[in-house]
């Protein structure tokens, strides 16, 4: 019972992440790669992503402090960040990345900074949600995290 309930909660939480636009299809792709041989694949990937993305975020921050702003460089870093975020299915974060890059191309420094703040928020929010999700999932015990028909 308990177990089922936990699983149910996990499933609900998961679904809400999609419904609220935090995650997209790509996340499901990751889930499908998870199996008995790779039981924690999704979490491993997400963790790896956090590590890499923190580095990119601080890199952007540093570059945003420069004067004048090097838009090409910022665009470049953001391109990487976007690629990484999209690999885990971070939908909202990815949208902010796109916006940021648009501002870079328009050489709009203010736009960049504002968007970046927003991006950081989304990034933090997603991270928090995923951490909660993984934790709950672990507690619920091994179960199918991806319930979609292939």
């Amino acid at each position, binding site marked *: 019972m308990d177990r089922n309930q936990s699983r149910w909660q996990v499933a609900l939480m998961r679904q809400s992440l999609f419904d609220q636009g935090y995650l997209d299809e790509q996340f499901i792709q990751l889930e499908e*790669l998870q199996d008995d041989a790779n039981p924690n694949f999704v979490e491993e*990937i997400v963790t*790896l992503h956090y590590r890499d993305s923190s580095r990119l975020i601080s890199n952007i921050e540093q570059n945003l402090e420069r004067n004048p702003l090097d838009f090409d460089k910022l665009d470049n870093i953001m*391109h990487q960040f976007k690629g990484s975020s*999209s*690999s*885990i299915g971070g939908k909202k974060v990815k949208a902010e990345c796109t916006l940021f890059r648009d501002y870079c191309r328009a050489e709009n420094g203010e736009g960049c900074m504002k968007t970046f703040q927003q991006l950081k928020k989304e990034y933090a929010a997603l991270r928090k949600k995923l951490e909660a999700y993984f934790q709950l999932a672990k507690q619920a015990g091994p179960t199918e995290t991806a319930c979609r028909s292939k």
Partner: protein
Amino acid sequence: MNLTNGKGSMSTASSNAAWKAGDVVSDQFPAGLRVLVVDDDPTCLMILERMLRACHYEVTKCNRAEIALSLLRENRNGFDIVISDVHMPDMDGFKLLEHIGLEMDLPVIMMSADDGKNVVMKGVTHGACDYLIKPVRIEALKNIWQHVVRKRKNEWKDLEQSGSVEEGDLQQKPSEDADYSSSANEGSWRSSKKRKDEEEELHQQFVAAVNQLGIDKAVPKKILELMNVPGLTRENVASHLQKYRLYLRRLSGVSQHQGNLNNSFISQHEAAFGPISSLNGLDLQALAASQLPAQSLATLQAAGFGRSTAKSGISMPLVDQGNLFSFQNPKLRFGEVQHQNASNSKPMSLLHGIPTSMEPKQLANLHHSAQSLGSLNMRVNDPGAQSNPLLMQMAPSPQSRGQMINENIGSHVSRLPSSMAHPIIPNGISSSVLGRNVIADGGRGAAYNSVSQNSSMVNFPMNQTTEFPVSSFPVGSTPGISSLTAKGAFPEDVSLEIKGSGGFVPSYDIFNELNQPKTHDWGLPNAGLTFDASQHANPLQGNIGIPSSVLLNQGFSSSQQSGHHSGASSVGNTMFAPGELMDQRNAQHINHLNTLLLGNSPRVKAERIPDASSQATFFPEHYGQEDLMSELLRQQEGIAPAENEFDFDGYSTDNIPV
């Protein structure tokens, strides 16, 4: 999991090694396909690896392009396909693509989060066999094996067509799997251990022989006889020839593309020069556009395709004339060609019907300008000479492009076209390929060729003046940019100004394979196909010829070193970053050229004209040439030159570790 060395793949390699296209697929195929995936993003890399494993492939992952290259070099036969990201910090993905295409001739799939049309196009022109948009789905990976099969199949076909298949070559090819290794070795250019310089020398001899025979008639047996090198077998030559042809083809493929882009630039003369990059058709086209005499085009074309074009008169139907050559149409042609090129692996196909010889035209143009100045209509090389576009020498005529093989060039300095014929070298700077730098300046004394002997690189002088790079591009990959720029010779008329530089023609290192003995396991008939022992099937079609940044493999450093690139010697290197060469070598040449050429040379924007978004570093080279040409031509014509600075965008090979 992070297996960056080939171990994983190696061990399994043997188990899977045997599958070859020839067999069509062993029962488990595509399982066991050996994939090398390169991406600096660790998250993506891990995901890809997992996905590829889920497809039952053998995966080796790598987060740096240089490591990937060395892995590939060490295990020539160790991989079947490479997947690489476009944006990487240590090396541009396209550069890596070129290197792989030239050295190992493996199918390469590019990927990026960037789905912009320009970037995808860049992938096409650089010869990627596919382009995936990130995030990549596993479904997209399930079918990548088709590229491997296709390539092998095409290689086999190329081999047949190249004419190098003689008497029994064909038969012995396919199906020999395991034996292949041994026979492949035999067929490999480097069947015996040779030092780099020996290889280079061999390559030079090879090219000379091919040029002498005429690309059409260059069959392994005769080449072997001409070369007269003890210990060299016909199979060695055959495989080397195959590779050489593919290389030429690639070059022409590139030029086509450029041509396309450059439509605008190609206005008359320029067009001709524009895409000279590949001998094959592309150049011809360009030449045609430039109204070069059909001959040159024909020649070029022939060269490109491996047919001997000996006749100067362009017999090619393609060359047709009038409009082909007219500058006005360059665009059409280029575009056509280009597409064709890109899509075909066969060199020739491009230009069917179109005066493929852009080059000749261009060459002619250059030549004329150089010599006669003014009359664009230069004959493309002398009529007889042409024959082998392979001639790397730089023809005296200012050929705007360093064509690689410009046989015509070699012999006729004045022939512009001849130099143009070689697709390779972009703007004129073609370093003498095999050491012959002949840059005969067309008439004016422009001495182009500065490239020294091995410069395989043909680099168009970057400078803004109208330089006419006349050079025969070195086959060998010498990066030397021979600033052929036509010296002086072109005064007003040809404003070919090929801006230096950029056009490096990647000299492909024919010998590169020599160094590595590899029997490649895939059974495709490649018996000698690949230059490198590993036998890769067709080189990336298309455009490996891009001069830019072609990576040089070990020999690479040589390219950087200014110029003296021992042509073929470097194993697998042939690409030199145009930028590099330019700097080193061109500088002087360029200056020289500048003085020679009129000062008014319009600066052709080396960068690709078409826009190309930013990225394209590779493209610029190509376009650059065209632009230069067009500029030059335009100037000649009195058209206001585009003010482009030829920026040598050079893909500098700085980051290429040698």
